[in-house]
């Protein structure tokens, strides 16, 4: 498996829980080339996520707070767009309605978790300096 294959599989599994067919990988790669000029990422956060997939949720949350232009976040967003614009995965992104009681319980819980993750991620990112080797 090449480095790009691993990156695609890691990010896709994180976003939707499975690895999509090869044509999505090709689309992802041409997106990286078109938007970032380079299919290979130069980001300490992404390199760390590739080595330690379990840290990806923290790094994602941390980047949203502290490094909004980080290649890790940008690549996650690109892959989100690609998956969203496909009949296979559209339903993962289309609006979902919840009942009020569920919303009242689920949303605050999710908010608390997300905030905790963001804080932990931000601290983690302090330790992950740009330019640090893999």
């Amino acid at each position, binding site marked *: 498996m090449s480095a790009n294959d691993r990156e695609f599989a890691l990010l896709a599994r994180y*976003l939707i829980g499975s690895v999509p067919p090869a044509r999505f990988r090709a689309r992802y790669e041409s*997106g990286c080339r078109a938007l970032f000029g380079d299919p290979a990422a130069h980001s300490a956060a992404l390199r760390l996520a590739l080595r330690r997939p379990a840290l990806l949720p923290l790094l*994602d949350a941390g980047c949203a707070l502290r490094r909004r*232009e980080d290649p890790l976040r940008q690549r996650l*967003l690109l892959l989100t*767009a690609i998956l969203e614009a*496909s009949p296979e995965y559209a339903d993962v*992104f289309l*609006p979902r309605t*919840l009942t009020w009681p569920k919303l009242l319980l689920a949303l605050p819980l999710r908010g608390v978790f997300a905030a905790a993750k963001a804080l932990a991620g931000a601290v983690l990112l302090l330790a992950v300096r740009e330019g640090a080797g893999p």
Partner: protein
Amino acid sequence: MIPAEVIVVGSGASGVHAAQALLEAGRRVVLVDAGEKDAHYAPLIPAKDFLTLRRTDPGQHRYFLGDDFEGVPFGPVRVGAQLTPPRQFITRLADRLAPVLSGEFAAMTSLALGGLAAGWGAASLPFIDDDLQGFPLSRADLQPHYDRVAARIGVCGDAHDALAPFMGPVNGMLPPARLDSNAASILKRYRRRSEAFARAGLHVGRARLAFCTVRHAGRGPARYHDMDFWSDHERAVYRPRYTIEELQRRFPDQFVLMMGCLAGSFEEDERAGTVRLHCTEIATGERVVIDGQRLILAAGVFGTARLVAASLGWDGRRLPLLCNPYTYFPALNFNRIGAPAANRRHSLSQLQMIHDPDGTRRHLLSPQLYSYRSLLLFKLVKEAFLGVRDSIGVLRELSESFVILGVHHEDRPHPGKYVVARKASGDSVALEVHWQPTASAERAQQRHEARIRRFLLQLGCLPVGAVRPGPGSSIHYAGTFPMCERGGAATCTPEGLLRATKSVFLADGSTFPHLPAKGLTFTLMANADRVGGAVARSLR
């Protein structure tokens, strides 16, 4: 050399209505336009509703994201971000051939068939006398032109709702567009307390849109596919190219359309009473000369400024510039959280509001309420401060109750806001915009926005931020050659004649001396119809 009675530059909202008035008065017209088109994306989009396309079309990534991923923007929200890949042809050629330079002001200009209105939001609000302060015109002068333009383009809305006193009558209005679930709940809430809101200066009604809710002039009826930012299958939203097609059909012997031509400059022969337009064919670089008795410039505010400066040698001359400051408020509509929303809807503005902050009607604001769906979730996710995966989870649940309130502020001329032409290579002219609004205007905007936020809360919507995409972002430009009863060379007569010339008329936003906080395009079209009529009469 091509002879014409009247040459019109520009196939945008202004140009086509000036041309129509001339043709209907029996004049021969040559209409020149750079004429960029989209032949790429339109054929890819099936005539189906948004949800069906999302669930069934394997080719959707091509138009939703763009073949070069031009629909996946990174960086801060900027002018033009609202243009989807199938609409980006509107600015493509202008970015290359007619750029506008500015540090702080982002100008969106078009060299496309139909101009900026090839992608406009269709909000069509007439000006009332209070909006026309500083114009040498009254609503009564514009009324027949509003009525004529409304009959051509089809304007829907409710002529009798709370907005009526701020709009005045417009003949032949089409039934209002169907409301989506968000808008219906907000309007209901407003109506329950409408008197209290009115006392506080807030009036809410149905959006006034150039949108065929019923079959009209061979267009529509709207099928509510929620694809209005992407495709034009049933032609429900008005686009100037429909007028061009109609003029070609109705006036085959009077009307010549010259697409693919870039106008560079004009010169007058005062003795002969003629005007000559110098153009370049974009594809071949060949020079084309068109002679006429009158020239109407409707090239958009920047395009017209460029042509006038290049022709009259106005290198370094400052021309005043107006542009409505724009802010939008994303908000959560608590009335709808957890409730399923109807699929069939349109993507344009759902509700129109008018806020009269001091009760004088002299500083009206006209916020517009939109729902968010067809621009896809990833754009919302990008703006959120949660991780991407968490944002998807949360925003999916909230997106049906997500609304956006866009607020335009009025704009008046000030020495700190101007455009200046500089001679560039060959005979081309570069435009530079300088934009330094006054602190007092900005304070007034903040005060008004604070009230708008409070209204949102009272209507059951929680604002979750305020986004100011920056100067230029309203895409409502005006004011470079203001019309006035008396003025210098760089002003126009009330009929649109540029005073520095004998036979050159301006029919776009260049002549508006002030910009009320209402979309200007309906008035642009009405005024262009008026100028076209005046030019036709001047030839008798």
